[in-house]
């Protein structure tokens, strides 16, 4: 190999980490530009952009929870059911006439408890894989939600309860028009994602979550209480699903039996598209956000262009396969054999 080749090679190798870290954002940017050219009047309008954020609001909570679980090399199939059960409990408590702050707290506590059940089941019952425990609770939680509500929708919440999912922050004081408001759910997404970014990257617990995904026996040998961390992770995942339920309550003004049906698959898809590895230890909070956005924009853009939802399914599936294939290629290049 002559010098020129070597230089080219090393430049290429130097670019890999950046591509690794920001490649997904590049993809997101490309999608936005393409959509803008396809739908120049609508796509980047205030109304449509806020719409996208409102649509992804509760999914982004589930995806963030599932992401932490995937980093530990686990999986949580029950997030959609946790959200549905939390939503049903919220609806029942609201119908019973509880004050709004009690109503708003119930899905968070219910979600946390559901997640705790998952975590304890995986660690104490020593399930061979989290897939099994959370597959079980996928059915258990949704069944419970239907049992307590009789399988019928319960509608009508107060404005305070609906604030996170339905609230608007007025921006007329900035000289904007009345229709150009900021959805509260967008601000909530930003706050929650920043908190969890700090948690995953700048705290010891976050580091240990990555270490468990990288090599659980290394974490154990270093004195990390692996089971305790796993219980925390699954509990937080349930808690985030509870936040999702609160947002959904605001958006739909009702608790309904089909809430969050199959949304665990969307959450997993967003994580995978965002670069989280199923083998654990790999992935970023920013990547998950990009994954959620890509799925949201894809659905929104295809809806704007009147493409059938069947095509949406085909496209999202293709993107999952493509994203993971890119990850496989990256692995071949980046890791020393």
């Amino acid at each position, binding site marked *: 190999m002559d010098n020129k080749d070597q230089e080219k090679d090393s430049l290429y190798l130097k670019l890999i980490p950046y591509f690794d870290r920001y490649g997904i954002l590049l993809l997101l940017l490309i999608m936005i530009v393409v959509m803008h050219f396809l739908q120049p009047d609508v796509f980047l309008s205030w109304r449509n952009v806020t719409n996208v954020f409102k649509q992804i609001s509760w999914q982004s909570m589930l995806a963030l929870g599932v992401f932490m679980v995937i980093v530990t090399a686990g999986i949580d199939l029950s997030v959609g059911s946790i959200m549905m059960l939390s939503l049903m409990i919220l609806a029942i408590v609201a119908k019973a006439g509880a004050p709004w702050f009690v109503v708003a707290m119930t899905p968070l506590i219910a979600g946390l408890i559901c997640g705790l059940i998952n975590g304890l089941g995986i660690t104490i019952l020593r399930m061979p894989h989290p897939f099994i425990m959370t597959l079980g609770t996928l059915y258990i939680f949704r069944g419970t939600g239907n049992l307590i509500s009789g399988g019928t929708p319960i509608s009508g919440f107060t404005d305070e309860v609906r604030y996170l999912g339905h609230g608007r922050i007025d921006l007329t004081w900035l000289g904007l028009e009345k229709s150009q408001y900021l959805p509260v759910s967008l601000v909530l997404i930003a706050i929650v994602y920043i908190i969890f970014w700090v948690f995953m990257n*700048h705290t010891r617990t976050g580091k*240990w979550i990555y270490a468990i995904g990288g090599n659980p026996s290394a974490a154990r040998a270093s004195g*990390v209480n692996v089971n305790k961390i796993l219980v925390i992770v699954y509990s937080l995942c349930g808690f985030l699903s509870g936040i999702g339920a609160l947002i959904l309550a605001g958006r739909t003004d009702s608790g309904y039996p089909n809430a969050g049906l199959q949304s665990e698959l969307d959450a997993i898809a967003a994580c995978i598209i965002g670069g989280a590895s199923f083998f654990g230890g790999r992935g970023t909070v920013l990547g998950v956000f990009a994954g959620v956005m890509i799925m949201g924009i894809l659905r929104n853009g295809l809806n704007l262009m009147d493409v059938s939802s069947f095509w949406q399914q085909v496209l999202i599936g293709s993107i999952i396969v493509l994203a993971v294939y890119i990850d496989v290629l990256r692995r071949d290049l*980046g890791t020393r054999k």
Partner: protein
Amino acid sequence: MSSINQLLLEAKSVTKYFGTITALENVNLKIHAGECLGVVGDNGAGKTTLMKVLSGLYKPSSGSLYFDGKKEILESPKDSQELGLEMVYQDLALAGNLPIGENIFLGREPTKNLGFIKLLDFKKIKELTDAHLGKLKINVKSADQKVEELSGGQRQAVAIARSTAFNAKVVIMDEPTAALAIKEVGKVLDLINSLKKTGVGVIVISHRMDDIFAVCDRVMALFQGTNFAESELSKTSRDEVIGWIMGKK
């Protein structure tokens, strides 16, 4: 007696049963400061069980452990770590997805306070890592390099560096050269020698006579869970030690 010969750790008549199986029977072991003890034995001779007893992973069925002359009962590996005993595991026990520095400090990361929240102090991790790797003369491109990007020998060096980053007095190494390319074995053996010079007591479990004779001062053989033979290295030979492993004196 000079401090270099100070007795760091002693195991007295350690016995360990697993159900009806006797893994160890009345095994004794001593390790002094600045000394390297080689532990040899065939598969199933009880080497690994003995090391797990020393590190607190297993509780002995009977017998006792003395750290610095004081009798201690270990409830978990954390207890032995606090007493200055560290293990370097055969599977290296490193998280490949984390950088070198974060592996070295895994479980004991330095933090800084931001209000009431404790955040990782990455600057301190890097400084301490650079200083520690420098002390042990371990060469890596950067402390921020991920462990999965390192060669087998570099990984072993990082594992050894991790075990000694917290003022360890005794380091136990399980087959430290087993997974390495030949050219890297020498570097790891050099590292063990420089550890000895810092006053650490090193216990090396190995099948490789070359390793034992390159770094150890004393060698002991286990056979079917018992002390079979023990000698100063200078007073024995390869053939004799190989004989011990097979149960011949």
